[in-house]
């Protein structure tokens, strides 16, 4: 395409260094200005002063390093000191950081001061050479390549060429195959939670995350917030992290006349609603419950759900409501679940069916 375009439109390049200003052209390059001396170039006393300053910086650095070692040895790692305006900080961290900082900074400051005051500051031009090779070299290389290619017979012996390409294309597959055992296949794992163990005949109790005890409906008052997990799960279980990432519940009680969604009311028990605590956006434990508005906000990305309306999304990036777990009471009067969530909890994924 660009060959169609005229390139005469490109502006003229500037000439080379030291070009003599064209007669009468006020914009011509006047050339490198003459070097002007610094104080230290012409005044030996100033130079000596600079030398002393540089050495002083190096000496301060040495002292700071000694201070670093002394702090390391002498200061107890648990010691806390009050330092204005930092507050109560670790004495060791503060001392080590500051001494190390000074030790390093003074080496740098000394070196730079030395360069700025005592080393020559005459600006020198160096020539640039074009990156591109000239035509002769270019022709030569292409010729060499052609010779090499002809000698290999790569173009002529097509069977060798094609089988080589085939083998090279296949061999990385071994590497890909090896990745298979990185993890299991998804299967139904994301579709179900630990609550699937619960049945009508063998319900699972809801265990309060604070007390680790089962709960009765009258324990949960309007305006309160409680978190729960299935019975049988302990914080010390081997798979606790994995289980709680899906099983965590958020229990709220809303005055029955305030519940706008009938289906949600039915899944609950006397106004007690058990929602998944895991946000349907990307899985943060959503639990910023505003008891007056019945809104639950996610602290990570601000998806807002109306818990009085079946956890409908009213703001933010979440795509669907929080799943609700059906709860009831068992013969002892404890809150129980009789089955799993009716839909997968947590963030949505390709295989998720509504």
């Amino acid at each position, binding site marked *: 395409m660009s060959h169609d375009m005229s390139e005469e439109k490109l502006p003229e390049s500037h000439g080379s260094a030291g070009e003599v200003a064209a007669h009468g052209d006020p914009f011509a390059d006047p050339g490198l200005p003459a070097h*002007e*001396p*610094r*104080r*230290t*170039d*012409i*005044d030996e006393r100033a130079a000596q002063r600079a030398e002393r300053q540089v050495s002083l910086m190096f000496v301060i650095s040495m002292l700071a390093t000694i201070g670093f070692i002394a702090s390391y040895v002498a200061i107890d790692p648990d010691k*806390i000191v009050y330092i204005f*305006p*930092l*507050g*109560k*900080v*670790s004495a060791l*961290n*503060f001392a080590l*950081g500051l001494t190390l900082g000074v030790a390093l900074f003074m080496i740098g400051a000394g070196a*730079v001061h030395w360069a*700025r*005051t005592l080393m020559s*500051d005459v600006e020198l031009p160096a020539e640039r050479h074009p990156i591109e090779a000239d035509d002769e070299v270019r022709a030569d290389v292409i010729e060499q390549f052609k010779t090499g290619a002809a000698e290999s017979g790569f173009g002529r012996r097509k069977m060798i060429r094609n089988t080589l390409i085939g083998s090279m294309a296949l061999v990385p597959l071994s590497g890909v195959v090896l990745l298979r055992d990185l993890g299991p296949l998804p299967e139904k794992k994301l579709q179900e939670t630990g609550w699937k163990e619960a049945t009508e005949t063998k319900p699972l109790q809801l265990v*309060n*995350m*604070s*007390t680790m005890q089962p*709960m009765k409906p*009258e*324990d*949960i*008052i*309007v*305006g*309160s*917030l*409680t*978190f729960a997990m299935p019975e049988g799960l302990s914080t010390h279980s081997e798979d606790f992290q994995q289980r709680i990432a899906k099983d965590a519940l958020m229990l*709220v009680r809303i*005055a029955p006349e305030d519940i706008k969604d009938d289906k949600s009311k039915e899944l609950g028990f006397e106004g007690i609603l058990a929602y998944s605590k895991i946000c349907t956006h990307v899985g943060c*434990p*959503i*639990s*910023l*419950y*505003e*008891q*007056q*508005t019945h*809104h639950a*906000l996610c*602290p990570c990305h*601000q998806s*807002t759900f109306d818990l009085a309306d079946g956890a409908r999304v009213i*703001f933010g990036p979440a795509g669907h409501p929080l799943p609700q777990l059906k709860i009831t009471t068992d013969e002892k009067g404890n809150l129980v679940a009789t089955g799993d969530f009716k839909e997968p909890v947590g963030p949505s994924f390709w295989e998720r069916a509504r």
Partner: protein
Amino acid sequence: MKKLSARRRHPLAALVVLLLALAATGGLYAAFAPADKAQADVAAQSLAIDEGKKLFAVGCSSCHGLNGQGSSDGPSLVGVGSASVDFQVGTGRMPAQQPGAQVPRKKNIYTQAEIDQLAAFVASLGPGPVTPKEEQYTSTNPDDISKGGELFRTNCAQCHNFAGQGGALTKGKYAPSLEGVDAKHIYEAMQTGPQNMPSFPDTTMPEEQKKQIVAFVRHTTSDEPNPGGLTLGSLGPVTEGLFGWIFGLGTLIAVAIWVAAHTTKAKKS
């Protein structure tokens, strides 16, 4: 008292009234609470109740009604309990002052004795959460701090932040910072669920656990040192990023300017 009645005639009084209505809605829900423990010795406090009633008539009745029955401007206080009064008045939230997304904490204008009288009066209207005694919120067991920390991260950190610095809620509402809040008031907030905060009643979070949470909050917001240096507000990576840009990269660029600058010439050109 004079000051109070003067305030009632203040031009802003109408606003205050409006705000009280919005703010105290929280108390309304607490009214649903089945109150079984609040039957304190009401009779013995009849004197306090009488005094409280007078205070109430002056400072609160314009919104909440002379008998705390509530009005269009303020919710009923029947059954909110003495703990609610102690929290709302003790933290200066009540009487409310200006309109806004939520009633902020401000300077308290009552003495503790007056608050107790007000609380006694409101408690007499109906059973509700009782103001905790000192031993209920004062922990003596050092293990309580770490236990409280775990409970705090489960129940509180989502709104109040890991270090109790508070955080944003919807539409301009916020969870306030817990820094400098009295242990008693932290305890009462959990009991009563003021404004939009949910409550954590003794039935789902026993006294002992509230005490542990209070121990953790007090430790984190006041006693806890910051071993690494400036906390930058304990607000996470946002303030760290700002600090890194301004004081980290900013200083480094300033240093770079010094390194690259031409040294002053002996005489000006």
